């Protein structure tokens, strides 16, 4: 089974200003203090683990006004095709995170990306709600992202964007419910989707690794895949066994300080090497 063709280059942002300062998902509780030193150590461990697995990591300068900037997955959507680097910055649902949009847009513009914008009135929370699979994007909507934004993304990126309705506030982004492992396989948490979304994923993923509800709530789908290595915030035994049976190396990386804000390994990273229009993975199906 060929390994995933993207996921060897990431953008991360150190947790210098990270803290649970507001509550915008059911995991966040302002009275729960973040251990700053532990957070820093966990973040550095994650970066070291990714590098050890063969990934490169670029680091963005943190900004004191936006504590959640550490979750770079929500910065936007990257598409590098044919020598052109495209970035579509996120539009956040909650005002608490809206300040991140221009900071990341500026970073990507500085790094040679063409920055394309969504209409101002549409929310979409970037790679947190849009993961590459089946020669397109699988995009979550309802809780954080607006459905009409997926049509705009399809237009901007020139690829199909399949929308899946997220129904459980605890699994508020698609990247907590879905993790592409390679061309045929993905970790899937159906408890986060409505029945139409489940059918959409069933039709897209030939070999899904279905999560039980308790497994889904462990955030194990919020993992980072570097080639044949899966870096997981938690590894339920059944899932670890299955991944190893498929030939993956499983590394559990403690990011418990970030789980306090409802974020795991995937949330802390943004893949910079996604090519959505790679011809080899083209699949035919009606829009």
């Amino acid at each position: 089974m060929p390994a995933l063709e993207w996921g060897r280059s990431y953008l991360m942002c150190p947790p210098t200003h990270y803290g649970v300062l507001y509550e915008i998902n059911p995991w966040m509780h302002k009275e729960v203090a973040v251990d700053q030193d532990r957070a820093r150590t966990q973040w550095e461990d994650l970066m070291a683990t990714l590098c050890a697995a063969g990934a490169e990591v670029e680091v963005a300068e943190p900004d004191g006004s936006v504590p959640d900037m550490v979750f770079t997955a929500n910065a936007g959507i990257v598409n590098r095709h044919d020598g052109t680097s495209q970035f579509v910055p996120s539009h956040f649902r909650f005002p608490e995170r809206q300040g991140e949009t221009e900071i990341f847009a500026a970073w990507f513009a500085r790094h040679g990306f063409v920055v394309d914008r969504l209409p101002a009135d549409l929310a979409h929370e970037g790679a947190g709600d849009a993961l590459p699979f089946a020669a397109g994007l699988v995009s979550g909507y309802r809780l954080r992202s607006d459905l009409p934004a997926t049509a705009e993304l399809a237009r901007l990126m020139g690829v199909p964007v399949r929308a899946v309705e997220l129904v459980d506030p605890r699994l508020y982004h698609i990247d907590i419910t879905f993790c592409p492992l390679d061309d045929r396989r993905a970790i899937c948490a159906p408890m986060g989707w409505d029945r139409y979304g489940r059918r959409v994923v069933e039709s897209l993923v030939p070999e899904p690794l279905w999560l039980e509800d308790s497994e889904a709530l462990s955030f194990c789908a919020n993992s980072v895949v570097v080639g044949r290595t899966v870096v997981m915030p938690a590894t339920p035994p059944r899932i670890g066994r299955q991944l190893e049976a498929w030939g993956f190396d499983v590394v559990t990386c403690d990011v418990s300080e970030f789980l306090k804000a409802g974020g795991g390994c995937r949330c802390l990273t943004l893949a910079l090497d996604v090519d959505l229009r790679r011809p080899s993975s083209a699949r035919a199906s009606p829009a």
Partner: protein
Amino acid sequence: MAVVETFQVEGHIVDSLILAKILDLILEAGADYRLVEVDIGRTVNDPSRAVVEITVDDDAALGRLAEQLQVHGANPTATEDATVEVTDSAGVLPVGFYSTTNLATEARVGGHWIAVTNPEMDCGLVVDGGLGEGDVVSVRTVPMHRVLAGDRVVVGNRGVRVQAPEKPRGVSTFEFMDSEVSSEKPKGLAVRNLANRVREAREAGARVLAVCGPAVVHTGGAPEIARLVRSGWVQVLFAGNGFATHDIEATVLGTSLGVSVTEGSPTEGGHSNHLRVINEVRRHGSIAAAVDAGWITGGVMYECVRAGVPFLLGGSIRDDGPLPDTVTDVVDAADRMRGLIDGVGVALMLATTLHAIATGNILPAGVETFCVDINQAVVTKLADRGSHQAHGIVTDVGLFLRQLADELGA
């Protein structure tokens, strides 16, 4: 009243099952839908687009459904109010005025769909009220010549919607009769069904309008109309100078245009009979005065006067006389007709082309219209001028009316 709203959704809505979900949600809400447009993306990368027309019980249910659908990217396409322009001169509509149909029509004013009070084709729409808090808004049709300076007239098509008339469920007699207007149809069945419609309309409190041409008298149908008026089956009569003249001529002199209505033969000096009749009515001052004086003792006009059935005689340039009751200003005549159609549920167009079309012009599409003529072109003409609701019965009007009056027990 059921409300209709059009929604649009765009994206990879087919393979994301978004369209399926939206249609399911509509049905689950007890509403109905019609896919107005589905534009499937040409390649896998192209987004698709669907326009869905939703029919739902009332505005409240529409609001609830719209909220649900919005989450899945479906938004109403017509959220804009109708554009209104203030007229600066009486009798002239603004450039680009919305030209009405005879269908039930609504205009969106201040975010609400307002039903037009008096649907009529080929008019403008005037918005009244709604200028201040709590000021009631209404929308009415206005024929061009009656628009006043300062009226707020709807321009363009935005924020205006019409409702197609509801088709009765199942096959009705007139549905299969309408496959084409033809003389080769069983008349007995048509008469019986028309009698039923008239009876139903009367039971529902609606009024019946008869529009008569002079051929009704020539073919011996006048006594049958008189019977129908006397028995309360006709509440309004529209005709011309000729019909009223020949009806009175038949009663007073026994001829119609000089031909004996009983013998069928021309009478001596008969060619001037109608002129002598008109002259005498003019001497009395009006048809009603001639009836009161005992000069007219029977016929359709007599029965109308006796029963208090309002009639309107519209004049034309070729009229003899005319009778004092004939309204020779045609614009005034049409306005007076407008004043008489309120509550009309069934219209019978009997052997007349011009008066049938004139009446068809002012009737809302909801009025069941039956056009009886020996010439099928009349029915076609009526439909071609926008009165699509007209059912045609091609037959001799005199015989037809006798059967109708018998069916109704007049």
